[in-house]
Structure formats: structure tokens, C-alpha cells
């Protein structure tokens, strides 16, 4: 299967977050740089579910020290993190 582009990843994550944490919200209100953790949109339990989704969907392993706001506060950061992890583990 061809790997998703950065834009595809962002779109998939946006859809996941909208469905799971913001039911009823318009996609246009959830921007690539909308804060997720620091704004309270995703709480600590929500983060675990998001990571679970990302690990399954993109076949990567998120280590505990990587789950902070530097990688998980904004959709664009999450997408770059996923791409970085995939590059680090070829055919991972």
C-alpha cells in the first residue's frame, strides 16, 4: 500500500478528532494549528485513544516520551511526527 502524503495524514487525523472529540463540529473550525491538548479539546484519556488510532493506522510505535505537546498539540505536528517515525523505520 502506498504511504499517505502529509496532507492525507492531516485529513485523516482531522476526521478522527472531529468524530471522536468534536462531534457536530465543522471541519473548517479545526485547523492544522488549532491547539488540541493545551486547549482541552483532547484530554489525557483522549490522547491515549488518539495514539492508539495512530499506531494502528500508520503502523508506528509511539514511545511514552514522544507523547508530549511538542508532537501532539496540533494536527500539523502530529502529521510530521508520523512521517518522521515512518522514515526512521523503513517498512515498519
Amino acid at each position, binding site marked *: 500500500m502506498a504511504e499517505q502524503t502529509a496532507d492525507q495524514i492531516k485529513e485523516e487525523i482531522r476526521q478522527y478528532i472531529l468524530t471522536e472529540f468534536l462531534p457536530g*463540529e465543522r471541519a473548517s*473550525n479545526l485547523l492544522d494549528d488549532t491547539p488540541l491538548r493545551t486547549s482541552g479539546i483532547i484530554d489525557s484519556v483522549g490522547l491515549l485513544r488518539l495514539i492508539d488510532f495512530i499506531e494502528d493506522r500508520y503502523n508506528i510505535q509511539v514511545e511514552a516520551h514522544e507523547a508530549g505537546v511538542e508532537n501532539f498539540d496540533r494536527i500539523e505536528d502530529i502529521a510530521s511526527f508520523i512521517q518522521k517515525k515512518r522514515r526512521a523505520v523503513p517498512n515498519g
Partner: protein
Amino acid sequence: MAETSFPATNLCEYLEASAQRFSDRVAVVDTDGSSVTYGELNDRANRVAGFLLARGLQPGDRVGLVQPKGVTGVCAIFGILKTRGVYVPVDSTSPPARIRSILDNCRVRAVFADPRCAGVAAGVETVVVTGTHAGLASHNLPRGHIAWEKVLENEPSSREIISRNPNDLAYILYTSGSTGIPKGVTLSHTNALSFVEWCSSVFKPDEHDRFSSHAPFHFDLSILDLYLPMKQGSSLYLISEELGRNPRKMSAFIASNRLTVWYSTPSILSLLAEFGDLKRYSFSHLRLVLFAGEVFPVKHLRNIARQWPSPTYFNLYGPTETNVCTYALIPTPIPDDRTKPYPIGWPCSHCSALVVDDDNERVAEGNEGLLYISGPSVFVGYWGLKEESAAAFHGRDGRRWYNTGDVVKQDPADGLIYVGRRDRMVKRRGYRIELGDIESALYSHKQVREAAVVAIPDADAGVKILAYITTSHDAQPSIVGLKVFCSKALPAYMSPDVFLFSDSLPRTSTDKVDYQKLQKESTVNPESSKIIL
């Protein structure tokens, strides 16, 4: 009822006795892995007491604690108790206005605060800043604050000068109030001692046990965590908020520290079972798993019991007002076909239970009724709320019965079975939430005209909280914006899961919000973005 006597008159005597017997044993392991012995902990607590007395603290004075969990907090708690003071632990992650309203409500005379939170205590007579890390100058610290290190330079107080009384208040725990103002549950030494003595007789811990401390100190599960190990000379392992949110790190922590007793809400055990990667470690030391605070969905309980097959499991039940008052041993493994939640079981030996109907008449076995609890662990009253306090109790047979507000039924084989509530209080992640408290916060949003909040059962999360909103402008606020607003106005566990917009709210014939209709509608179709009324 006859006075019950305990081997202690004040909770701090558990520490004092263990400091005599086990001076060099580890009492508490801090969140950074460092530890203090019983001798050291008692010495520091004596210095805190010496400091507070020198600042003029009187018996019964309230002292706030606004800081992340740590050994300094444990030292401060025992120091406060030694002066016959009352500690008031406050969630340091709560919005500052909420923290301040609690400190003001019980008129604290002193506060121990982390540098990040100390600003909220400005104006309080004595403010101790407990952070030892660098960069204190960058925080907004109140004038005249005192550094924790200075407190420890005080001469230790000696116990002889204080005459202790078991009826003294020991601590105040604030819970969600229906009008948006947190409500202070006041508990005496007798209340806590009777509970700790019961725990000791049932769970039989000794000095070789290693206890978890997962719950924050403002949560009543912390009473078992703090005082049962202190009584027995066991070791207590403090779990930071950051670690407590991370199931993978937490399972490594439990295994590497060879914890023997775990106590938390079912939510945390569910997360451990689901995300903790438990198969990577051995948990052979774990002998006791205790849970309390909410109903444990059976599928999650089955999951944890499968992965941790050896410990004994207990379901502990009780509101903050009584602490644990009923308990049930959970036989494991959990059968695959079981779906109904486990009972809350039988009254603890220091408590009595009564199930009554609306006329306060005892109901027959098998029928539903309100659960009343009596016994030495039942709280003193709500701080500053005379009428609410009086209304919480019912006199009968010369005893004082607390109306838990929980509907239960009695079964000859299972004991008490929890059915639900008739009011608007729900439990999420072990926290008690008055739905009216959330509504009050939503009403302070300038675009919100009306708000009605309901909770519906959810197989994964236990409950899901839905907020129905009508707006005062044509422009509807974004859900993202409402989430952000709630995160600033409410503790995280109170933020609604779903926001629904409507032109108007359904009303009853007396023009009150028709919650039953909303509830029904929500259960049928919780995700609809607009309900038809």
C-alpha cells in the same frame, strides 16, 4: 451511639508510632524516585508544625495545599495535623478562580503552593512556596511568601504541647456543587481513623507492603493511600499526575517497584488493561487490587483480572461524606458471559446501612430504595452550609444517618446492588460532577443563552456528558471554542463530551427544563447535531 475508641486520637499518631518502630524504613517514595524514611518524615512534619505554630496557627485553622503530588505535600499534611490544623487539598490543575473560591470559602490562614500556583494565594496570611526548582523568579509569587527550605529550618514542635482531640476536623475535601460553587465536605480524625482501622482489619497490610498512591490528595481515595501505610510502617509510592496519565509508564512503575497494593478508580484500571502493555512485565508481587469511585464496566474488569490473575480484587463503595462504607470481594476470573456490574456488597464493620423509600420506611429485600449510612466515618457537615448539612442527615433509632442519594437494592446473596441516582449528580473517572455546575460555567459564555446538561451511560467511558445550548446571537459559537472555554472555566473531567445546538430547550408544564425529555432524546440519538423538539 457509644464513642468508639481507636489506638490513635489524631491521624499524625500513625506516623509518630511508625517513626518509633520503623525509623529507618522507607515511608514515602517521591515522584522523582527519592525517598524519605519514617524518621525523616516525622522530623520534617514536626518542623512544619513548629513553623505553623510560630506563625500563630490555632487548632481548627485551615491550611490549603495547592501543589502537584510530592513528599513535601505529605510532610505538610502531617505537620498541619500535628498542630490540630485542618488541611484543605485543592486540585492545582483547576482553573485559578475555582482554586481561589475554595481558599476563600474556608478562609485558609496558610497555603502551601507550587510556584506556578502560589499567585492564586495572594493575600493569604502565610504562603509557603514548595517548589525547589530554579526559575522561581519568573513566577508571579505573592509578597512575603516563604520558601519551603526555610520552613524546614524551624525547630521541631514537640507533641506534648498540643492536646489532641479525635473530634477535631482533619481535612476538608471540596466536591462539585449543584450551583457552581464547590462544596466542602468536612471530616474529623474520628471519621478517618475509623475507616483506616477497618482497612487494617480487612486488608491486613504489614511493613513489607508497598502501596500505590495514584489518587491526588484532594480525592478521598488518598485517605487510604496516606494513612493505612503510615499505620503499618509500609512504603507509599507517589504517582505523579504525569505518570498517572500514562498507562505504559505506570505498568513499568508498578512492576519495577514491586507494588503489592494498588488502589485507584476503575477508569485507571481500564486504561492499564487497555493501553498498559501489561504482558511485558511480571506483577507477581501484587496481592491486592482495590477500586472505588464509580461503577466498573464488567468488560474492563474482566480484562484487567485476566491480565493480573493473582491479586484479590475488592470493590469499595462510599461517597466522600462517608468514605468507604460498603465493600465486595470480586471472585476472579470474571465469567465470559457476565455483563451486569458487581454489587457494592456489604456494610463495613464500622458502618450500618439502611435502605428506605420516600417515606423513610425500610424497603423489603429486592426493592429499590435510598441508601442511608450511619457510623463513625460519616462526615461532620458541609463547610459553612448549615441547611445543606442538616438536610443531608436523617435521625432514626438515636443515630445519625447520612442520605447518600444513591438508589440501591438489597439482595440476600450479593448484598447491596447500586442502581443509580435520582438527582443530577454523576460520576466520571471517580469524580463527582453536579451537572448544574457545568451549566453555571456555560452560562458565563457570552454567546450562550441557555444551557442544559445531561449524562448518558457509555460502555467505554462509563458516562458521556452532553451539553444542549441555545445561543443569543445568530452566530453559533464553534465547538472548538466551547471546548476551549470549558477548559478555562472547569476542571478537565467536567468538560462536556458533546455540544448540541438548538433553537430552544424542551420545557415541562411548569416551564422548567425538561431533562427527562433531553435524556431520552440523548440516549436514542446522542450524536445528532440538532434535536427536534
